């Protein structure tokens, strides 16, 4: 293990560091109580995603990955937060605390279990590629995916659920960029715009729900169920 780390260059270590911080923001999204704070964490996560793509771009000397980094930076740290802020009414941000199905300490323990699970799931896949960066990024990407899904599951508010879906997408992207650095640019572009449209549609939908029903607490939908 020690020989491997000593052959790591500073660049690879920085890529690993962004991966670590990416995982930390994914954990943070589970732990956050405020809507605005989880949106800010999403922005940070996207910044780390872009940084990781940029560092991988230097590593592979690939112009595609620079483009991916730029697209991520523009769509996910500027456009999507702006869209969410615009389409979703202020009332949701004013409310301080998001209600959750489980309390935060137990959510955190479950999310640790999920992260470890992600490592075990990705172990058989790691044999395919010998690159150290893939070994690092793939499990963290999968962990980001699982933690995003967990956020969607456990929150009872529409807006944090939207943020959860977006962070799932971030996780998938994070793993994808590492596995397939030569993905055609058109695919990346399509994915980026897809996410943008998804965010817009979901934002408009939540706004509509809020206008009609007066709340976006989807947890209350359980009362619609017939016994």
């Amino acid at each position: 293990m020690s020989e491997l780390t000593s052959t790591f260059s500073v660049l690879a270590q920085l890529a690993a560091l962004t991966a670590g911080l990416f995982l930390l923001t994914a954990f943070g999204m589970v732990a956050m109580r405020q809507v605005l704070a989880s949106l800010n964490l999403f922005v940070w996560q996207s910044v780390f995603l872009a940084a990781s793509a940029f560092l991988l771009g230097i590593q592979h000397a690939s112009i595609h990955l620079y483009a991916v980094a730029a697209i991520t930076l523009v769509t996910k740290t500027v456009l999507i937060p702006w869209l969410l802020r615009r389409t979703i009414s202020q009332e949701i941000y004013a409310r301080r605390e998001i209600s959750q199905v489980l309390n935060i300490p137990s959510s955190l323990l479950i999310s640790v279990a999920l992260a470890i699970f992600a490592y075990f799931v990705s172990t058989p896949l790691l044999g395919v590629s010998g690159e150290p960066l893939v070994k690092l990024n793939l499990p963290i990407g999968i962990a980001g995916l699982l933690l995003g899904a967990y956020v969607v599951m456990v929150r009872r508010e529409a807006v944090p659920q939207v943020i959860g879906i977006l962070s799932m997408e971030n996780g998938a992207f994070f793993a994808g960029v590492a596995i397939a650095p030569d993905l055609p640019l058109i695919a990346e572009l399509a994915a980026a715009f897809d996410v943008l449209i998804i965010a817009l549609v979901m934002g408009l939908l939540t706004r509509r729900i809020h206008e009609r029903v007066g709340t976006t607490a989807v947890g209350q939908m359980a009362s619609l169920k017939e016994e």
Partner: protein
Amino acid sequence: MANRIIFNVIQVLAVMALSPLVKGVLNRLKEIIQSKRGPSIFQPYRDLWKLFHKDEVISEQSSWIFRVTPYVVFVTPIFVALLIPVLTGYPLFFAFMGDMLGGGFILALGGFFATLAAVDTANPYGPMGASRTRMVGFLAEPVFMIVFFTVSFVAGSTIPYIVQKHWVTPLANFFEPSHVLLMLAFFMLIIAEAGRIPVDNPSGHFELAMIDESKGLEYSGRGAALMKWGGSMKFFVLLCIFLNVLVAPWGLARGETLGEVLWAIPLVLVKIFIFILILAAVESSFAKLRLFRITEFLGAAFITSVGAMIIRLLEM
């Protein structure tokens, strides 16, 4: 050999002499951030001087624990200072007497006696603070354990002098994700252990909201001075473990001459000053957490340390 014993003693003297200064600078910085002038940075020394010259009042109802505790609280950080790198980058005479786990035990012994003494006088605020400190303590314990075991696994040793070399040779190791996450987790741990602001307000005067301070309310005169001095030495020792072992083992003496060891003192102080700047900024930008939110704060620290562990252990 005689050299190393002398350096070890110098190390302890430096911890004793400089720890109130660190408190003073930190308090002054926080006051400046709040756009006040604040007391002089030498105020903690004056407080100690004043307290040593005052009469001591001890309740008749209290037992020997109450009388012994100030000495235990005062002595335990000194023992830890013998074990950890404060000024030198190479092991000193007592370095192999105990590892980081041993240091943790010794610090915990001081905390244990302080808790017992708080309960001893039956002052209503003491036991309350004691039980709260225990709550923070047992939540901080798993974080400490995971940080400690990850660090010693990575370095292959539990002796702090050996651990500190690993992270900076080569320099790329410094940016290892597990290292950065461990630093973050340990920083949160220091905030919790030293009772700084998101967890506890050290300058608060409202007994019901106190966590750490209310344990020492019953002490006066020499006892209070020793408790205060011991508390600031504990803080200094924690900073030394954090800075010299985990974050930045630069600036420590390499050679075995007296001059180099003495020159390390200002360098270590500069490092601590930079750390205190960051700590003051953190303390001024957060509000104190409600008592039951501390679980979440330390839960976040736990997650950070576990993240560091799984990145390190499951990566390969």
